[in-house]
Structures are given as structure tokens and as C-alpha cells.
């Protein structure tokens, strides 16, 4: 595959992530903040998101499996996860967190456990997608190409 084909593949893949709702406009903002002086900005922020999320999901699992669930604590964790997913444009994770918080308010343990499953699922999906995307980027750069900076949605 030549660089041009890899770049087109990257563009198509990125577009699909937006069309399928995995990512929203905030992810574009992240890409726009990346430049020659900060070439790894997106990967750095997203890696932080992965670390943060995994910790929070672990804490949530622990908190919801207690005998007396501390919903305030659960809500605080979900609030954090909602914030960080929103900040990087992980739309489906964010939306799952919004639903989750409603059930925290109702102090409904079973519903919360289902929400947690949902959030975990969405997180795994977006993590795989982003890792695939970054893999494509590495291939392009290794082949001497550059990552496209403009995504035109007209084509």
C-alpha cells in the first residue's frame, strides 16, 4: 500500500468513526490543537483518557458491588468519566455516562450495574477504534507520509 492509499484509508476510517457516533466534534478540536510543535498531542491526551477510564471503571465496579452502595461516590466517578470522555470527543461513552448518572440519582443499584456494563462496552469499542486509528497513523508516518489535516465531508 502506498502512502496515498494509507492516507485515504485513514480519512475513511476517521469519517466512519464520526458517522457511527463514536467520536464527535470535540475530537476534531483535539486534532486541530496538534501541530509540528506538539505532534503527539492527540495520542497523549487519548492515552491519559485510557488510563483515567480504566481506573474509574475499576473503582465503579468496586463501589457498586458493596453491600451499602455509596451513590454519591458512584456519581462522582461517573461525573469524572463523563467529563473526560466529553473532553476527548468520545461521544458514546459520554452518553452512556449521562444515562448512568440518572440512575445514580434514583439510587437504583441494578440499573446502575447495567449502565456500568454499557459504559464498559462503549469504552472498549472506542478504545479499539482509536488504537486502530493511531496504528494507521504510525504506518503513514513510517512510510514517510503525513497525517491528513483536513477532513472534507463532502466526498
Amino acid at each position, binding site marked *: 500500500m502506498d502512502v496515498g492509499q494509507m492516507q485515504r484509508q485513514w480519512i475513511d476510517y476517521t469519517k466512519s468513526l464520526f458517522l457511527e457516533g463514536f467520536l464527535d466534534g470535540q475530537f476534531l*478540536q483535539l486534532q486541530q490543537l496538534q501541530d509540528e510543535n506538539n505532534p503527539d498531542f492527540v495520542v497523549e*491526551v487519548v492515552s*491519559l483518557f485510557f488510563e483515567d477510564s480504566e481506573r474509574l471503571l475499576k473503582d465503579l465496579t468496586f463501589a457498586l458491588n458493596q453491600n451499602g452502595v455509596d451513590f454519591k461516590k458512584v456519581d462522582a466517578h461517573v*461525573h469524572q468519566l463523563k467529563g473526560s470522555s466529553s*473532553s476527548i470527543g468520545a461521544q458514546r461513552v459520554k452518553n452512556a455516562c449521562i444515562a448512568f448518572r440518572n440512575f445514580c440519582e434514583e439510587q437504583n443499584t441494578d440499573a446502575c450495574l447495567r449502565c456500568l456494563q454499557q459504559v464498559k462496552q462503549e469504552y472498549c469499542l472506542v478504545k479499539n477504534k482509536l488504537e486502530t486509528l493511531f496504528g494507521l497513523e504510525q504506518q503513514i508516518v513510517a512510510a514517510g507520509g503525513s497525517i491528513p489535516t483536513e477532513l472534507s465531508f463532502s466526498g
Partner: protein
Amino acid sequence: MGMAAETQFHVLAVDDSLIDRMLIERLLKTSSFHVTAVDSGSKALKFLGLVEDGKRNEEPPTIALEANQDVEVNLIITDYCMPEMTGYDLLRKIKESESLKDIPVVIMSSENVPSRINRCLEDGADEFFLKPVQQSDVNRLRPHLMKSKVKDEEDHHQISNKRKETEESHSPDKTRTKMEPPKVVNSS
């Protein structure tokens, strides 16, 4: 007079989320601001040199002068939801401080709660941004910084104007800034 060429504005960013700190720092730097980012309200107050009674550290003049120059902050942008000290608490402490109250403060929050927003704006916040913060939000910061700058210049001009009035009663006002209403010299 004689302000030096294009001074870089220094923004203090406060957010307990590392991801959001990275984002806001990048956004601000893209707009050519000099940025210091801290993860709590108490660290922000420490950086600003605020001690509990609201005054700056009382130190011998020479040291205080250096400290002031090092930590001159032109704008504070803070998250609302933080453990221990919220962005609102921080806002209040800044506005209650003689030395810091004129620094513009901007609050950010991921939650759109009108009563929260109104309370912050009523208690002295210059802007309230909903997260995730955009480049267009950051572009709205400059007028607040320029306003503080003009106010400083205006204060200096008013002092020198008063002196001029006592010396020469008919000299035209050469130092009028945007903020002063125009003096009517000749009515027509």
C-alpha cells in the same frame, strides 16, 4: 506611558482533571498566552501569593517586587467542580482580596446549571464557559485582558491629568482613553 511592545498575558488555569488541564493549556498557548496550570484552588491561591487574611505576603519591598513580577497573573480560568475548594469558592476568595480582586476570573463547567452560572456572574466572574472549552471561547478572553490593561493606563492618566489641571487650566486633554466620556470644549 511607554508600555513595552506586545506584552504576553499570563493566564492561571485551575482544574483538577489532568486531561482538561492539558486541553486548556494547549488552547491558551495556541492563542499566545503564557500559561501556568495548577490542580486545585488552594494551589492557585498559593501561586497568587494569597495568605489567609487576604493580603499578599508582607515581605521587605525588594523581595516583594521580585515576587510580584514573577507571579503577575492577568486572568484566572478555573473549573467549577473541584474537591475541597470549588471554582466558586476560589472566585469569592479572589474578589475578597484587595490585591487580586481586579484580575478577571472565568469559570468553566461541564454542567449547564443556570442558577450556578448566574451566581458566578453576579459574584464577579467575567465569563462562564461550558466544557468542553472551544477555541472560540478562548478568543473571548482577550477583551477582558485588554479592559484590565486600559483600566491600569486610565488610572495612570487620571493621576497625571489631575496634576496637569492644577498647572495649566486650558490645555486640551491629550490623554483621553476610550473609557472617559468626551469633554465638551466648544458647544455648537
